[in-house]
């Protein structure tokens, strides 16, 4: 370890520029947790299966355990810590999870919240099938998925209500970045086969 080259990197995390000095093999998940002290991003399997470590990279959900921090030097990251408004008001997705009993121990929750935030940014009114596909890469071992699915539906409702009344809490930090490069996800009813 002592002889490993260290890299000075700069990430915009939840809107704030953060600097870190890391070896090339530092996973983004560990960089966030250890170097930047943002322990809201959870680490379960470290091989891409559980989804707990999901964060938004330039607005798109990715596995932080399958990304080297040096690889994303200069990019924007949104973590669970960045979903609520600066005054602490929960985002629509966070509120829906709380209201729908969509978490129990909370271990999987940061990954679900980031995944669902991006899902609804891209597709504000997903069908049940699209919800299932959207969260298929996140495992929950204790709450069960029924309430999580309800929470996604509820979050879509809450966001739509806010949009209508213009009461809009500040949109999650990722909205701008996620909105931009997306082609329409609504390509219709092509089957998965």
């Amino acid at each position, binding site marked *: *370890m002592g002889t*490993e*080259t260290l*890299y000075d990197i700069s990430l915009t995390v939840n809107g704030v520029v953060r600097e870190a000095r890391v*070896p*090339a*093999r530092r*996973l983004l998940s*560990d960089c966030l947790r250890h170097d930047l002290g943002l322990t809201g991003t959870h680490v379960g399997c*470290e*091989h*891409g299966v559980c*989804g707990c470590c*999901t964060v938004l*990279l330039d607005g*798109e*959900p*990715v*596995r932080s*355990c*399958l*990304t*080297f921090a*040096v*690889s994303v030097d200069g990019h924007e990251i949104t973590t669970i810590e960045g979903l609520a408004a600066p005054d602490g008001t929960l985002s629509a997705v966070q509120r829906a999870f709380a209201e729908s009993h969509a978490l129990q121990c909370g271990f999987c929750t940061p990954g679900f919240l980031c*995944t669902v935030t991006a899902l609804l940014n891209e597709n504000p009114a997903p069908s049940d099938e699209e919800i*299932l*596909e*959207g969260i*298929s*890469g996140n495992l929950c071992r204790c709450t069960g998925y029924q309430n999580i699915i309800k929470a996604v539906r509820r979050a879509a409702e809450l966001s739509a209500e806010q949009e209508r009344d213009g009461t809009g809490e500040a949109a999650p930090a990722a909205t701008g970045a996620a909105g931009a490069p*997306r*082609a329409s*996800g609504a*390509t219709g009813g*092509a089957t*998965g*086969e």
Partner: protein
Amino acid sequence: MKPPPFDYHAPRTVGEALEVLADAGPEGKVLAGGQSLIPLMNMRLAAPARLVDINRIGALDTVTADARGVRVGALARHATVERSAAVAERQPLLRQALRHVAHPVIRNRGTVVGSIVHADPAAELPAVLALLGGTVRLARHGAPEREVPAAEFFLGPLESALQPGELAVSAFFPALPPGSGTAFCEIARRHGDFALAGVAALVTLDDDLRITTAKVACIGVGPVPVVVDVSAECARRPAASAASPAVAAAVRDRVEPEDDIHATAEYRRHLTGVLAERALRLAAERASHG
């Protein structure tokens, strides 16, 4: 677990990448989306001494679709290719197959070319390339690029024709011929997992809606994608009869599945027959509505 240490290179141009790869030789590994390589490193099943990260080479982030087909650059993510309407129009099998590749979040980062080079026998995209007769373009420092046909590219499980020092710069998928349809059917234990077995199908009809060509590529049932031409079994039958017990039997005879913790060889063989019928039926249907 944590990945072992490595020397890191982040070139900004293809030329620079090729120089580093030439210098690194067998010690060098390309890092694309990292969705196969980083899990292997985290589990300490891979420990490349030198990693060449191509994520900053904007010139490789390309997808072009025209009447000849679809060319996918080495930095094009699964999700980008899946969403592209131009790609779906020229070669619909790509989107059909990509929807079976892992989960949406993995597809945001993983690359099409990375999946092909990785050559997992259960992966979808190598089968797509093999079925369509596509090619992979390989570059090396100080040498002309070479275009390797799929039939010569996949050599064994996780083994491709890519040599040390080479970079795969793109993959080419020929366009769908007129009067054709495609489909991808698979069965996995859980949605998004690698398939127990899967079949990609391509069916071409003549003006009377009779089958002229029918081919499948099977995954998870051999060291490389197993391409079976069943045109003879289907010869000039109407589109609606693309699937038949004879066709399923012909496909079952050609695959070489193995037992593992997930399924027995016999079960995989059985699934392949069932999936071949399903995929051919669907492809023929799409060809006739083309």
